[in-house]
């Protein structure tokens, strides 16, 4: 009979490590709060309450004058166009890079279970390029391009294209690696080329995930293009910047409501596409 069976209580051996880990995480959080001078009570002292109250009171009702709505519509279209064009350009770069970066399509891995040295040597630089592309925030690129190509959405499009190709490429490569590798390997093993094995073996399983991530990124690109508007890249961002400077609260609320609608729209499209690809 095993010795443990004589003990009075069964004890989960994982409990202590888990408790310690939770404690450790909480301890790590504390310096973070200190460093950021996080003191929410300031929000509620009387003076600040009054200032914020006055600021917010100016926000209602939303501005619905025809002239403003026309401008809003134009800016919305500009923002959407910026996000969409930027993302499309990003895809042009991200798809080939992700195909090189992924380990899923390694033919040499068929033999030994791991990719060959040349394959790995080629993959690392590509992964590094993806890291470089996404490590610089789009706002920095936008500031740079605004100086290069002048004020307007072009700078935003280029900034989104560069940053997002890095993000999309990395996550695409990871999505390819997360789906069942057997179908693609079986195809490679019967003489198919890598790209054909990807199209017939990986894509059917990854399509849903890829679509939903891409649409989420599109949503992020819409928001990013708004932020870049503040530095002169046009669209809703530039508009909200102007409205805020003029303390036109109603206009700001109208613009914010437009954001809400855009995100809702992106969410709906994503859901519908996911349903179709499920």
């Amino acid at each position, binding site marked *: 009979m095993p010795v443990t069976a004589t003990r009075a209580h069964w004890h989960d051996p994982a409990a202590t490590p888990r408790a310690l880990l939770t404690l450790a995480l909480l301890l790590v959080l504390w310096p973070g709060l200190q460093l950021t001078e996080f003191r929410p009570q300031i929000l509620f002292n009387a003076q600040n309450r009054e200032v914020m109250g006055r600021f917010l009171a100016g926000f209602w009702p939303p501005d619905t004058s025809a002239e403003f709505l026309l401008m809003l519509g134009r800016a919305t279209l500009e923002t959407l166009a910026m996000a969409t064009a930027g993302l499309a350009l990003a895809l042009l770069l991200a798809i080939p890079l992700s195909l090189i970066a992924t380990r899923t399509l390694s*033919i040499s891995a*068929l*033999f*030994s*279970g791991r990719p060959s040295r040349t394959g790995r040597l080629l993959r690392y630089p590509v992964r590094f390029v993806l890291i470089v592309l996404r490590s610089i925030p789009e706002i920095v690129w936008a500031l740079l391009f605004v100086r290069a190509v002048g004020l307007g959405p072009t700078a935003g499009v280029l900034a989104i294209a560069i940053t997002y190709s890095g993000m999309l490429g990395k996550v695409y490569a990871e999505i390819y690696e997360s789906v*069942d590798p*057997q*179908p693609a*390997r*079986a*195809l490679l*093993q*019967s*003489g*198919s*080329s890598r*790209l*054909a*094995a990807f*199209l*017939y*073996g*990986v894509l*059917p*399983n990854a*399509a*849903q995930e890829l679509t939903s991530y891409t649409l989420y990124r599109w949503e992020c690109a819409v928001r990013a293009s708004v932020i870049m508007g503040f530095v002169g890249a046009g669209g809703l961002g530039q508009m909200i910047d102007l409205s805020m400077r003029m303390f036109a609260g109603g206009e700001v609320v109208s613009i914010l409501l437009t954001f809400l609608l855009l995100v809702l729209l992106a969410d709906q499209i994503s859901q519908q596409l996911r349903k179709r*690809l*499920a």
Partner: protein
Amino acid sequence: MSISLTGVVYTHPNGMRALSDINLSIKADEQVAIIGSSGAGKTTLLKLLATSLLSSSGDLQLLQHNPAQLSARALRQLRSRIGLIHQSPPLPPRQRVVTAVLAGRLGQWSLARACLSLCYPSDIEGARAELSRLDLAEKLFERCDQVSGGQQQRIGIARVLYQKPDIMLADEPVSAMDPVLAEHTLSILGSIARERGVPLIASLHAVELALKHFPRVIGLRAGEILFDKRADAISQQDLDALYLNTGLDDTADQYAAAANNSLRSRCL
């Protein structure tokens, strides 16, 4: 001679020897079953024949080529001439049956044709013809995850039939089917191989199926060929020797099975 092995040895990267000194030759008009307990090396042998593993030593000739000496391009060409029917069919769940079958010829198609065929299936009639031999023609436009396990296995077979390979290999091709369907499928496979004049090599757990449907049977035990005979010449003693102790010696068997599993997850 379609296939010939001379003194072929395969040792796993972890040092375990899976096959030792295999001598074998198979002609184009032969149907061969490989039997033996799990861990005997059946799957490893099939993987060598499918060029998804390279032999550690010895000479392996497939369709007059030694895969170890081929350039990447020539190896791809050789691979497109070898069809392997997998035990668990490697079909993406969301793919349609017609696409899964047409994928059999990706090794022969140009990339442009492969892309176009994704937009509109380029050879619906060809895929239907192979599926109808396996009584699955009505599933042509369904999705692979909407059919049963046995049907998926037959879709995997239809893909290899559509590939029109010069060597047909099958790793437990009927393991997910009921006995009647298994018999039926094996006899179809045999008759197609005869009709096309290509060799068929299948590993099987069920000894009676092997003896009934394959004229030649190879018994593998612990990585060696115990017998290689005509099916009607195999005696009960042969079979007893093949499966001797495998039921009793549990630990060894489990060890072998575990090794086999880890190999499978790593290599295929």
